[in-house]
């Protein structure tokens, strides 16, 4: 649609310039023709001057009239030459030929009428007068014919200019109409698309808010979380996290990222959250939870293009031991006094293949923070288009000490780095072990 709009605009602009060029050309031609018309009247005046000078000489024998005659004859030649050049340039062959006839008549008149009279002004014969009249009649008629042709050409050019202006107006109106209609259609289409997207986004966000875990207090730990939506015109992604107490000392820790976006992905997050909870009540090991979920997910969803990266951990708050399984989810870190380290994945993403998953164990110390994030953290790009990648660990290391503070600062960092270019949602779950030994350890 945008291309059509641009094309319409381009046509309108091109047509305007083309018309302008044509009208310029026509005006230039008109100016030349009008100049020729003026010069033609000047030529006729010079011819009459020649004849009147000759009459004056014939009647008075005053040499003054001979000078006038020669001056007019000289001016006649120069003016006739100027008109001839213009007519040739304008390719007006008819008037050009008539002008040739006119010049020839005038030349013959000079030879046959003017020259004998100048030689002997006393012998002004009747026959010579008649010949003078004949020349005068024919020259007048020839000039009239040239005048008429030039006037017709000029009128034709005026008509042509008017036609070009009319045509230009019609085309401008047409393109304006097309442009306007396309713009209206485009606007309607875009409004509708935005409305639909906004509705979907609202539904999805409501769903996700409902499915996302509220803050669950854990013994000897503080929990922080944050969620950042991508820009408004992007559909909401399928990020989910959960902290669920399995017993008085054990908690299920979950973060997952479903491929795809929109309501479907949001609904899947609910499926993931409650299914993992249900499995975790029966299976104590994260690897087993992932395997069972993988099987259930493949059978329930049946979409080979849909997959989930997931981190499932079981945290014992009395021993501070975290046992986890990571199905292709690599945005998981532990921040300790010695720095930040990334937790290795223990199996492939879910929904792709039935590979066995393994468990890993991490013993946390007081002051350590478990940081779980989705790929919105590592895949955020700066203005140069560079991914954050492993530099995320540096950002985590520099963040504030408390869990919620850390989550908020990570979100702020991503917002600043990504600006309006955020392509993916971001979920952060941070669990910090409080300083001091657990009370029931």
């Amino acid at each position, binding site marked *: 649609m945008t291309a059509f709009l641009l094309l319409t605009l381009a046509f309108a602009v091109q047509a305007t310039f083309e018309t302008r060029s044509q009208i310029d050309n026509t005006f230039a031609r008109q100016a030349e023709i009008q100049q020729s018309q003026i010069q033609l009247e000047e030529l006729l005046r010079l011819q*009459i001057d020649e*004849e009147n000078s000759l009459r004056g000489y014939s009647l008075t024998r005053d040499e003054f009239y001979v000078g006038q005659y020669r001056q007019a004859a000289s001016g006649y030649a120069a003016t006739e030459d100027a008109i001839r050049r213009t007519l040739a340039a304008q390719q007006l062959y008819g008037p050009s030929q008539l002008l040739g006839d006119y010049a020839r008549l005038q030349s013959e008149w000079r030879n046959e009428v003017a020259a004998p009279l100048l030689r002997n002004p006393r012998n002004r014969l009747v*026959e010579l007068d*008649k010949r003078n*009249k*004949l020349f*005068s009649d024919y020259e007048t*008629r*020839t000039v009239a*014919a040239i005048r008429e042709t030039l006037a017709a050409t000029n009128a034709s050019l005026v008509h042509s200019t008017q036609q070009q202006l009319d045509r230009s107006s019609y085309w401008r109106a047409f393109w304006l109409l097309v442009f306007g209609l396309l713009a209206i259609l485009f606007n309607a289409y875009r409004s509708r698309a935005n409305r639909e997207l906004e509705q979907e986004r609202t539904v999805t966000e409501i769903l996700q808010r409902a499915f996302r875990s509220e803050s669950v207090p854990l013994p000897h730990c503080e929990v922080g979380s944050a969620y950042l939506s991508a820009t408004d015109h992007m559909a909401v992604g399928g990020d989910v996290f959960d902290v669920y107490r399995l017993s008085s000392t054990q908690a299920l820790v979950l973060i997952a990222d479903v491929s795809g976006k929109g309501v479907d992905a949001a609904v899947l997050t609910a499926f993931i959250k409650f299914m993992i909870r249900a499995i975790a009540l029966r299976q104590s090991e994260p690897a087993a939870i992932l395997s069972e979920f993988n099987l259930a997910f493949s059978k329930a969803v049946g979409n080979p293009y849909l997959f989930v990266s997931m981190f499932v951990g079981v945290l014992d708050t009395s021993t501070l031991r975290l046992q986890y399984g990571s199905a292709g989810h690599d945005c998981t870190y532990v921040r300790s006094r010695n720095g930040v380290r990334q937790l290795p994945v223990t199996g492939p993403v879910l929904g792709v293949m039935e590979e066995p998953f393994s468990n890993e164990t991490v013993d946390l110390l007081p002051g350590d923070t478990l940081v779980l994030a989705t790929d919105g953290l590592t895949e955020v790009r700066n203005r140069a288009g560079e991914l954050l990648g492993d530099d995320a660990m540096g950002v985590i290391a520099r963040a504030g000490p408390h869990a919620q503070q850390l989550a908020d600062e990570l979100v702020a960092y991503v917002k600043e780095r990504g600006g309006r270019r955020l392509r993916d949602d971001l979920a952060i779950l941070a669990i910090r072990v409080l300083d001091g030994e657990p009370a029931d350890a």
Partner: protein
Amino acid sequence: MRKAVLALMVLWLAGVGFASADCKVHRGVHVVLYSTTDDPSVLIWDSRPRLREYYSASFDAAQAMLPHALLVAPGTHAQVLSCVQNYVVSPLFHSPDDAVGVTITSGQHRGVIRWVLGSDVRTTHH
């Protein structure tokens, strides 16, 4: 014999005059001969076809016809004997012109009967 021919010519001219009621001048009207402002002297012709031929012929053909024309000074008086509407047609005219038969009533050609172009004939207002 000469008088008889003249009388016949007058009668013929008069007959034509009766048949041309829509001419701009009518029989008996007194006129002054005056051509274009470029050259106001007037050629008068001994026959109506020659008058027409002069205005449609080539320059050379028109030149050959000149012995059949008289040149009268502008302001020469005449009386209309007849008129043929739109008789003279020329590719150079916007519209056909009348052929007017006149008797010259002043100047050296007084009494001569000839044909003249309608637009060279000006009616007098006295």
